[in-house]
């Protein structure tokens, strides 16, 4: 399968008085063409920072320490700002976290979408307006919404406007950062289905960040499990849910409540601090299967099956 985006050893750090806060610390993965790749993990594990790193949106005091992000034949991290601007939005777009609050409250929806279109293409304002209304229709909203202000829409609808906005130029890759958190289940379902449908219709590739494993199970093809700034396991959704290998993935899956299973187990202990990750495997202080080697050597992500990678000393060797 062809990779559309390749992230190699990406490190995004934040400068603090107490030293570097290593939020994303050596992450490598590939996104295949026309798939939905999920990224899961508890809060503070670096999911959002990873997305910001890929898009080069990290703000000071954060900085990209090292790594490569290969997209459309070039390394985004080394591209000139001017050239990056040509790719952003048109080829590579972004649905920000809490996107219901990402809209400008004093501009009508139409003005905001048109603004994006005109900035990133050579289209005229008229043409951009037409595109706006078709983009809104594509996410199942009537064209009248274009004339409304953000406060006139509910949170879920604002989120759908953000989806329309980020997909109106038919980008080949969309990075969605928690696009459905803080919505009720019906809106959540509607928006996830909208994303999946747009992906099919326009042949997009989607990277979906969400902390809810159930959302991933619904629409993702593959999933990456992130913990403490690193990827612990990557696999095809069905495989990973049925046969999780990494103890952390197992823990995460057991902690998801569902209507079929009333008993959930939480993972003992607390997430470590990014200022000082544990030595060796970052999960070892909380791991029920830890061995001696776990505290000494950090395991690397290795292939254990087809499209199944895991970073754990229990496997391999």
């Amino acid at each position, binding site marked *: 399968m062809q990779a559309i985006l390749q992230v190699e050893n990406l490190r995004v750090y934040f400068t603090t008085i107490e030293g570097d806060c290593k939020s994303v610390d050596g992450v490598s993965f590939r996104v295949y063409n026309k798939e939905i790749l999920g990224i899961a993990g508890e809060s503070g594990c670096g999911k959002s920072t990873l997305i910001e790193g890929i898009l080069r949106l990290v703000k000071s005091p954060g900085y990209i320490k090292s790594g490569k992000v290969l997209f459309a034949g070039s390394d985004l991290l080394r591209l000139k700002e001017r050239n990056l601007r040509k790719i952003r939005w048109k080829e590579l777009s972004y649905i920000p976290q809490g996107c219901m609050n990402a809209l400008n409250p004093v501009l009508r929806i139409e003005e905001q979408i048109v603004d994006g279109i005109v900035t990133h293409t050579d289209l005229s304002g008229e043409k951009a307006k037409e595109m706006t209304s078709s983009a809104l229709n594509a996410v199942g909203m009537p064209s009248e919404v274009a004339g409304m202000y953000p406060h006139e829409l509910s949170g879920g609808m604002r989120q759908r406007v953000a989806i329309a906005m980020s997909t109106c130029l038919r980008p080949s890759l969309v990075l969605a950062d928690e696009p459905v958190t803080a919505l009720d289940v019906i809106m959540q*379902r509607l928006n*996830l289905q909208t994303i999946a449908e747009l992906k099919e219709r326009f042949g997009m590739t989607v990277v979906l960040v969400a902390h809810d494993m*159930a959302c991933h199970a619904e629409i993702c093809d593959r999933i990456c499990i992130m913990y403490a700034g690193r990827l612990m396991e990557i696999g095809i959704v069905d495989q990973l849910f049925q046969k999780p290998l990494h103890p952390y993935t197992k823990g995460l899956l057991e902690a998801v409540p569902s209507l079929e299973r009333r008993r959930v187990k939480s993972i003992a202990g607390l997430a470590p601090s990014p200022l000082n990750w544990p030595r060796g495997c970052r999960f070892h202080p909380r791991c029920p299967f830890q061995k001696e080697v776990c505290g000494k050597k950090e395991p690397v992500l290795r292939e254990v099956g087809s499209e199944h990678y895991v970073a754990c000393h229990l496997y391999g060797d």
Partner: protein
Amino acid sequence: MTEKLLQLEKVTKVFRRAGLGLVREKSTRALDEISLTMYPEPAIVALVGESGSGKTTVCRLILGLKKASSGQILYKDRDVSQWLEKDWKNYRKEVQIVFQDPYGTYNPFYRVDRVLWTVIKKFHLTSSDRESRQLIDESLEAVGLRPREILGRYPHQLSGGERQRFMLARIYLMKPNLLVCDEPVSMIDAALRAMFLDHLRDFKKLGISCLYITHDLNIAYFIADSVVILCSGQIIESGKTESVVTDPLHPYTKELISSIPNPDPRKKWTEKLEAESVGLQKLGKGAGEQGCIFYDRCRYAMAKCEKKRPSLVKTKDREVACFLTLEAN
């Protein structure tokens, strides 16, 4: 004990915005004749509804932070609107709340200990400082926090999960009769949620009832003994959790339950939800008009649903407000 712990009798809450100059007068019916009863036997009742359904308004009314427009709220068979200051003080001791946002509920200038000390002093829970300290340690341990690590810290030094559990320590300290939780785990991690919910169960064993407000039916199913489904300010279905979740009767409840993402990739959503059906939230407007509040979105809607609103009717194991179930019986 035959008395009821807390009873809401046809409570309605209308928010009015006065018209002034360019601003038009507007009124929103947030709650429409809600009746809800909690009995003295400890139980966890979940109040479930989507955003804007009036969940938080119920919470505010119960806490006495807002006054009902009409209807009665009775605590131990006494009407709260007739109360004097001293009754309220006693009420605050017996009815406690855990709010949604663990970041906004602490005063960042004070150490977290102050939360517990204030409670102890205000309600004279102990007779000496030594006893207080013991009580604080005991309550922190009861919610799985290590007193040495937590005490003396400032709120920003604690994680969201720790902050919420610290609030639970306050509840343990006071042992109220009723605990109202307004989406307490929506801002903490999945892994920590389970822990938080387990504590609520432990509290039930200690005799603390809980009204758990959430939009997440998964959580409701996980902890609640009974559920009340709220839609646009009206109760549309209520009953034992098991029966409501496994066999929902109201079309809205059905939609809610089928929309819950299933953490099993082999069981995905089969049908597509139509954007138009959830469309431009007409739901909010529905309340206060004549017909059924779910009429616009209901796939089983009949002619009479538009004209008349079904009232909450008792069936064998629950209460439902839908003409369909009425006819079936």
